[in-house]
């Protein structure tokens, strides 16, 4: 079982006729995800991969009962696509697009406050509930259904940890990539809260990185509210200050946002922190007493 996505997910793909959008839609369908519609303005009436294409998200929601959207449109159109989905009544919006301008996201976040939508990302790999639904770009085959919840700011680093978990026969309830940008729709605490309330999640793995203070806030939340054990990994111990390490949000500014301070915050909150990504799985195994 799961959080955020599962058997009840009815997905609309924004940008379904684009190269990336089409490629990943095929993979999501192969995994068993219910893709009920696509949206590409101007291509309404067409069909692709067995799904009807609409001009607007509103039509997709009305005609097909879509409740979740995934966005593959280019960066300059991403904020528009997010707001359109939220306005159409989509409950969960997952924005894969990388390179969205920060001020666009700042406006989007204010806009979303007036709606019921939850945004994941942008600049994220998406969400997978193994065995139920894959809403994103992650390689499906490394996952296995189980009760370890995963939340991460990274893509491939998450795959690395998932693989290590699966290798030790530790399946995952849901793996959530929240994205590597400075402003994201859903942060660590939001997802920790969901895992805390999910009866099928027994242990949570948090994968952080340099930049910002989201991990420190997560550590505080864990110490106060989390009833389940958490294991963490923080990337970027060797990252120099002032340089953006790929992700727009991965930068140490004014001496703030270093891996060391994040690791210290987790350790102070009683969270085991792995030195290497592959160690995460071992720590989880020990914690679960298997």
């Amino acid at each position, binding site marked *: 079982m799961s959080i955020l996505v599962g058997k009840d997910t009815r997905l609309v793909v924004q940008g379904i006729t684009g190269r990336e959008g089409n490629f990943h839609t095929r993979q999501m369908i192969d995994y068993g995800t219910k893709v009920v519609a696509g949206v590409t303005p101007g291509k309404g009436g067409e069909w692709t991969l067995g799904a009807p294409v609409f001009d607007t998200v509103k039509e997709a929601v009305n005609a097909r009962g879509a409740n979740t959207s995934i966005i593959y449109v280019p*960066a300059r159109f991403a904020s528009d696509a997010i707001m359109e989905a939220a306005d159409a009544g989509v409950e969960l919006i997952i924005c894969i697009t990388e390179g969205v301008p920060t001020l666009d996201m700042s406006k989007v976040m204010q806009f979303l406050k007036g709606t019921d939508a939850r945004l994941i990302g942008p600049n994220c790999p998406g969400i997978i509930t193994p065995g139920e639904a894959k809403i994103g770009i*992650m*390689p499906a085959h490394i996952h296995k259904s189980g009760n370890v919840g995963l939340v991460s700011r990274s893509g491939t680093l998450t795959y690395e940890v998932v693989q290590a978990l699966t290798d030790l026969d530790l399946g995952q309830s849901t793996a959530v990539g929240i994205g590597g940008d*400075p402003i994201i729709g859903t942060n660590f605490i939001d997802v920790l809260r969901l895992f805390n309330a999910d009866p099928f999640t027994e242990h949570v793995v948090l994968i952080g*990185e340099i930049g910002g203070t989201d991990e420190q806030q997560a550590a505080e939340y864990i110490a106060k509210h989390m009833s389940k054990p958490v294991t963490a990994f923080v990337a970027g111990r*060797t990252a120099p200050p002032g340089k953006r*390490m790929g992700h727009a949000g*991965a930068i140490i500014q*004014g001496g703030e946002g270093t891996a060391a301070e994040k690791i210290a915050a987790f350790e102070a909150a009683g969270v085991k922190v792995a030195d*290497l990504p592959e160690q995460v799985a071992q720590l989880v195994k020990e914690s679960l007493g298997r």
Partner: protein
Amino acid sequence: MKLHEYQSKRIFAKYGVPIPKGEVAVSPTQAREIAQLLGGPVVVKSQVLVGGRGKAGGIKLAKSPEEAENYAEQILGMDIKGLTVETVLIDQAADIRKEIYLGIVIDRAVGKPVFIASSEGGVEIEEVAKTNPEAIIRQAVDPLLGLVDYQARNLAFELGLRGKAIVAFVRIAQGLYKAFINSDASLAEINPLVVQGDGSLLAVDGKMVLDDNALFRHPDLAEMRDLQEEDESERIARLADLSFVKLDGEIGCMVNGAGLAMATMDIVKHYGSEPANFLDIGGGAKAEKVATALRIILADPKVKAILFNIFGGITRCDEVAKGILEALNEVPTDIPMVARLVGTNYEEGRAILDAANFPSAQSLGEAAQKAVALAKGETI
């Protein structure tokens, strides 16, 4: 992307922020001519994209055009934190009575632009944050609404400004906010904002950092990029759409994904060496991109071994394997390498490398240990 002081201040001025009269010079003679035109004392300021210019001797007050020429002679060509001064700004000197800090950044936690102000201007704000955090005033701004005048007035009062300086400050704060928004900045800073003897306000120093992701809608600003900001290899990487940061170690790293690239650097360090770079070849990287990335890594003479770490998702391991071999055909090298390929098409990828006798590893830990051993000249 960082802008120089003179570029930042010119943008501020466009939005009504008062700045000192001044002009840039690339030679001492030019500096003297500008000082003559300005009349009175001037400040000769090195234009390099690092902080601490004053401490390094890169900012001097000149009482005469001749002095300005002499200082320009000293400062031009000077090395400040590894950067060579190629331009100086000659500004009319201000009549400084009080120094204020005024800046805007994005507050990641609330997702909004936030003003940061302090009556302790003229020093780095990070320093004030450490030594005297109570002296820092913050005001978040709703990006849909913009800065409302009362918010700017509140800042002015808290800064201890009185009388007509309040009105002047509100205009400056509004101007700075418009400059920040209209340039898609991630930082816009006036430090110091000076209160002069006659009560007027003047933005004596300025700094802007722009959001790289928004440069597509600001071609005019993108043109202002100073090549000095980046290392040569970083520039080539940026043009090839590779995410690359040069570091000082000896293990070259080529990885897909930013988080994994950072983790790979950390593991290299964990096993006793230092990474030579951060390099994310991105998702779906094809052979040609891999070849470009490899050339960039090999151009660093410090590199003693190269570690490839590819977790195939969108990226296909066989494409990367082909890219590695193609690149080695074009750029023959004796630098030892080890590859770790997992995920999409890893079997095909590994078969391609095995056929070429290219060393590989199963796990990231094993790959890192092998790379460190290779760098020491050991055989694996």
